[in-house]
């Protein structure tokens, strides 16, 4: 239970929709799309969750970039510090992921903050995971760069998502 939120939030279906509401100027649209898609596949690979992108209306997971006061009760803090946040599963703002656009997000560079890594962490929250105190876990609260091209989900995170949703039935 250490993996879940205090109220054990989870999606009641394994078919989850997402929508990218806007984009950061730091990267191309294709790079943002690719980063988000790969971040979701990190979780799909080890669980029964399947993600479908929609381009209008309200998705389960609404993904957006904003700065300072950006429409919820948790303002961002400018460069560095807090990079992003996300809400556990549920209606409306629940499940959504917000990225602080005062950060410099990157696709593959070690400069700035790698969007794929930050998104994979935040989407873990959008699926119901809380923070891990395992420094090697993706769900550890502090950012650390690892090469996205060789990224493999740490065991602690696999245990967490499978505690909530079970294993991937397709493997």
């Amino acid at each position, binding site marked *: 239970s250490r993996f879940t939120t205090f109220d054990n939030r989870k999606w009641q279906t394994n078919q989850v929709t997402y929508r990218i509401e806007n984009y950061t100027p730091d990267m191309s649209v294709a790079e943002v799309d690719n980063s988000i898609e790969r971040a979701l596949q990190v979780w799909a690979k080890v669980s029964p969750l399947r993600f479908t992108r929609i381009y209008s209306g309200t998705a389960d997971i609404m993904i957006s970039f904003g700065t300072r006061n950006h429409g919820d009760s948790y303002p961002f803090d400018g460069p*560095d510090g807090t990079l*992003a946040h996300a809400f556990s599963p549920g209606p409306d703002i629940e499940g959504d992921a917000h990225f602080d656009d005062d950060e410099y997000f990157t696709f593959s560079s070690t400069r700035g903050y790698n969007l794929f890594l930050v998104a994979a962490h935040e989407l873990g929250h959008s699926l119901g995971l809380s923070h891990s105190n395992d420094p090697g876990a993706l769900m550890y609260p502090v950012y650390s760069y690892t090469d996205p091209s060789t990224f493999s989900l740490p065991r602690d995170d696999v245990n967490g998502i499978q505690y909530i949703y079970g294993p991937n039935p397709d493997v």
Partner: protein
Amino acid sequence: LPISPPTEEDEVLAETYLKRFFNLTEETGPTARRGPSQRSRKVSEMQTFFGLQVTGTLDAETVTMMKKPRCGVPDVQP
């Protein structure tokens, strides 16, 4: 070397950090006067979470951890 006390800036940073991530609240009522302060207890809770030496005080490694870029979701549940 003598340990340098935390700066005013570190104190403000710590207060904001502990409120945001470890549910530090304004101390009121009897708990405000008894035993280690809530602030000290919350520093210890943060040090325990991150595997730091648990001192309950704003030592250098604790302040360093508080300055690292991170996710904005709290580390403890309400």
